């Protein structure tokens, strides 16, 4: 071999080990998850949009509601609490979804492919991160709601919390889709106003209960309508409209399909 006489080489007796093992769980581990969560908690913009904003909205628009809305017999505070908590959860999961696409555009996914981390394990890390991030605003808004007099039946509290959390988390698919469409940090600048608009149209920022019939019909065709109705169902009671579920499944399905479509288009070139 080459004789590098010009350079002082420190002889290292220990030969490179060739007998290696594949990591358990496809490389999934706590250190990775911890760093992923840390990234979210350090991102001020994400925290403002996903935690602070829903909280401020609830305090500003939900807490002052003292009398019931015309023609309804539920607590408007509880209605607003669930709505804004759902908004926070879906904004959070959207941000994580868009982050996946941004990471891909920046070559991080490719870098990870040079490690033992498996695809399913990467997805698992992201899903868990999205769910934990989405849980944050839900828990905070619900706690503030409970302490400011939002009321519903005892049984409805845990169920609506769960449905708000899960419903919001499903919107990671929207983030992923938009992220693949606009693979840069601009994705969140489109998503921010975009989801606010959808929240208005779908009856989250502007209660369906006080909408005109026309507006309510329009609302029922927008992405957040079905899942928000499901989240409020334990509180509202009455009959369960299967169209809520249909709306949720169709929209979330469309977002996932869109993300997969863009992803495939993207990889076919590589």
């Amino acid at each position, binding site marked *: *071999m*080459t004789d*590098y006489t010009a*350079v002082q*080489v*420190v*002889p*290292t007796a*220990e*030969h*490179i*080990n*060739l*007998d*290696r*093992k*594949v*990591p358990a769980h496809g*490389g999934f*581990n706590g*250190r*990775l998850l911890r*760093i992923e969560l*840390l*990234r979210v908690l*350090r*991102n001020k913009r994400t925290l403002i949009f996903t935690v602070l904003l829903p909280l401020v909205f609830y305090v500003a628009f939900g807490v002052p509601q003292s009398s019931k809305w015309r023609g309804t017999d539920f607590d408007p505070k509880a209605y607003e609490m669930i709505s804004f908590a759902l908004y926070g959860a879906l904004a959070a999961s959207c941000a994580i979804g868009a982050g996946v696409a941004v*990471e891909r555009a*920046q*070559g*991080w996914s*490719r*870098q*990870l*492919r*040079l*490690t*033992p*981390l498996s695809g399913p394990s990467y997805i698992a890390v992201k899903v868990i991160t999205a769910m934990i991030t989405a849980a944050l605003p839900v828990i905070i808004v619900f706690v503030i709601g409970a302490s400011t007099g939002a009321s519903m039946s005892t049984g409805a509290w845990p169920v609506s919390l769960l449905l708000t959390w899960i419903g919001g988390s499903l919107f990671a698919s929207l983030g992923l889709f938009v992220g693949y469409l606009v693979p840069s940090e601009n994705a969140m600048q489109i998503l921010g106003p975009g989801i606010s608009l959808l929240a208005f149209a779908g009856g989250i920022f502007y209660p369906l209960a006080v909408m005109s019939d026309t507006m309510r019909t329009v609302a029922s065709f927008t992405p957040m309508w079905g899942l928000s109705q499901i989240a409020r169902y334990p509180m509202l009671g009455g009959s369960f409209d299967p169209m809520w579920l249909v709306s949720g499944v169709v929209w979330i399905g469309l977002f996932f399909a869109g993300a997969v479509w863009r992803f495939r288009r993207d990889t076919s070139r*590589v």
Partner: protein
Amino acid sequence: MMTTQQPGATTIPDPQGAPAIELVGLEKRFGSVHAVRGLDLTVAQGEIVAFLGPNGAGKTTTIDMMLGLSMPSAGTARVFGMDPRDAIGRGLVAAVMQSGGLLKDLTVRETVDLTASLFVQTRSVDECLERAGIADIGDRKVQKCSGGQQQRLRFAMALVSDPALVVLDEPTTGMDVTGRRDFWSAIRQDAQRGRTVLFATHYLEEADQYADRIVLVRKGQIVADGTGAQIKAMATGRTVRATMSGLSDRQLAAIPGVDSVELQGDSVSLHSKDSDAVARYLFANTNARDVEITARGLEDAFIALTGDDDQQGA
């Protein structure tokens, strides 16, 4: 997940005796573009190989197949006798890419720590930061790092799994002189431990200086394979200069191995592909003194061997 296998049919990878890299009849087509055209390459464990070629020669495409990032259209790529994905899963291979592949919102240390968490066998994070020369900026955000610092970080990430093979695509891009020196010194130290290194570079001097072996690629094929000295000689031969008297230029041209002669008084320049034989002849049979053998730079060899003679660059 369970598969039934004949006893003995189970292939337990034995990386010990296998070549670090074995490419056989490797081909890659992208639509009508034939990027890699039947490439054969075997790299033994412990070799430091430079992978050289003009842009579009198929270097990166070949590296991608070597790393299991893309599938060959034909032929096979094996790493330590395994499928590249298997070797990567075991942490036997690491790669340093030219750009990208970093999360801007992580600190330097977190990036290496995250990478380390994915492997079963690792070196300590501190050791890798130290060896890459970035121990002092461990808490710095990646986005605040200079291009050279980011490249050192990629190197630290590659070191952390203590890989048996490192593949480097333009490894010292953006590094200053100190950075390059530190980098190659670290690479050489590990070569002593049996680590195989394959690097693509445009710094031809770097290839000449640091590789045991240079593989020249052109239009998806290997056009030359040898030591830096062999490659240089192959393309350009060497020049033997001497001070001597008594021989005419015709007599000089008749010396075995001499291709051409330049004569200026007592100063003689003989061009040859076998300069050793020419020098031996001069010492044995003439009064030549101050004999000097020089090679033309690798740059010239590189251009001569990879030059595009039919404007059909792929």
